[in-house]
């Protein structure tokens, strides 16, 4: 999994690259907007971490130019923490927006969430187990003895995040970020989505899996083998 880090501050670029390497990602770096576009074209990374305040060509322009040609996941990094800046970044095509300063562990979690959500890079087409498997390319969930269940995009993202963490409690905020991106959703929206997906699983795949609510924390997917 190759990530292009575009950051003009070399000290910060070094720390980000270090963090990513320690977490198993291959990293390449660029320090201005024009070089970033050249590197992106030449290297075709699986993701771009993009600072906004860049020399030669600003990050928003870099994002627009990449988005005009490809769906490479882009996470913006910026000191600008206003709603306007975040909304603008997401509207022109960023998949997530991280405000500086940030924690390395949060950065890695957000990268993984975006990769899961966008199905980018080496993420397999199918996740899950023999008892419950999600086919991303068909947007379907399959269980032996039942016809495939076609899911809506948001249902797919929710179930995917729960399946890859099957048996464990996934915090509500992490689910929100994985489904809608930063600031894109809230707990009420998540509650409604969980209600919808839970109803569908109960009626269309009875006895295969349930979504359990852990009050004040989040949700966990339990398959019949966990019961």
């Amino acid at each position, binding site marked *: 999994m190759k990530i292009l880090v575009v950051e003009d501050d070399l000290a910060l670029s*070094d720390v980000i690259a270090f963090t990513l390497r320690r977490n198993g990602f291959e990293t390449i770096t660029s320090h201005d907007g024009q070089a970033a576009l050249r590197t992106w074209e030449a290297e075709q990374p699986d993701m771009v971490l993009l600072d906004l305040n860049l020399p030669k060509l600003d990050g928003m322009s870099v994002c627009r130019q990449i988005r005009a040609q490809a769906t490479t996941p882009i996470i913006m990094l910026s*000191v600008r923490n206003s709603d306007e800046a975040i909304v603008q970044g997401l509207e022109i095509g960023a998949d997530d927006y991280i405000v500086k*300063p940030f924690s390395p562990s949060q950065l890695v979690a957000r990268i993984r969430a975006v990769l899961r959500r966008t199905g980018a890079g080496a993420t397999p087409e199918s996740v899950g187990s023999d008892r419950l498997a999600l086919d991303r390319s068909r947007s379907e969930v399959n269980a032996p003895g039942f016809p495939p269940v076609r899911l809506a995009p948001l249902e797919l993202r929710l179930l995917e995040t729960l399946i890859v963490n099957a048996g464990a409690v996934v915090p509500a905020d992490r689910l929100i970020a994985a489904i809608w991106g930063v600031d894109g959703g809230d707990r009420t929206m998540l509650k409604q989505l969980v209600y919808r997906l839970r109803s569908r699983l109960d009626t269309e795949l009875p006895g295969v899996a349930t979504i359990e609510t852990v009050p004040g924390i989040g949700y966990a997917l339990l398959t019949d083998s966990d019961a």
Partner: protein
Amino acid sequence: MIRDVTDESAQRRLRSYFLDSITHEFRTPLSTLSASLELLLDTEVGLSAGEMRELLKPTHLSLLTLQQLVDNVLMSSRIEAGRFSVHLRPTDLGAVITSAIQLVKPMFERRQQTFTIAESAFPLTVQADPGHLTQALVNLLTNASKYSPLGAPIDVTVLTHSVWIRLAVADRGPGIPPSDRARLFERFVRLAGDDEQYGIGLGLAIVKSVVEAHHGRLGVDERPGGGTIFWFELPLGEAAAEQAATGPIGIGSP
């Protein structure tokens, strides 16, 4: 009563620009510090000595960046409030150059930039305030590093005349059009077409104030072959001028 609202509006814009810029300038090195310290303190990560050093280098660089930023903001505030003054005393310019280079060395190293120092004549003793002169030189060297490509050399030249001494810093940056040069030393100036967006626009204004407080003068020239030369001249005192006529007294090497 008539108020000049144009002026007030310009002041508001300037204040807003300053706050916006300074937030950015602080947050970036703070990001490096918080991220690298989190990694260093995380006992679960289990870093090797080499990895720790790899993280300490950007940490050190960011600390120096913050230090320079704070120094410049404080100095600018003193200048604006009319509280800036220098305490002139016989000062070895060689030692000032050494101190300044020590402070920018981590930046030069990370940007793989070398520096050369050429002294065409001696002595290097001037009537100066060493602290403020070091800060001015650090600002010139930092600018030269930032605007030069990675790996490009930075040249420092010291030239002594019978009554003044000139210190010049040459970069390999994109150069500055002659029409823009006069405004370079004003606070918060961002030149048209300057897409590099470095800094908050205080560094060169501070250099100007420091040099003028030393009864010196400063300027900017095009570097033959590309880039810019920033220079300042300080007057030599009578004793130093006499020494200039008799011979060299040496320079501390960086």
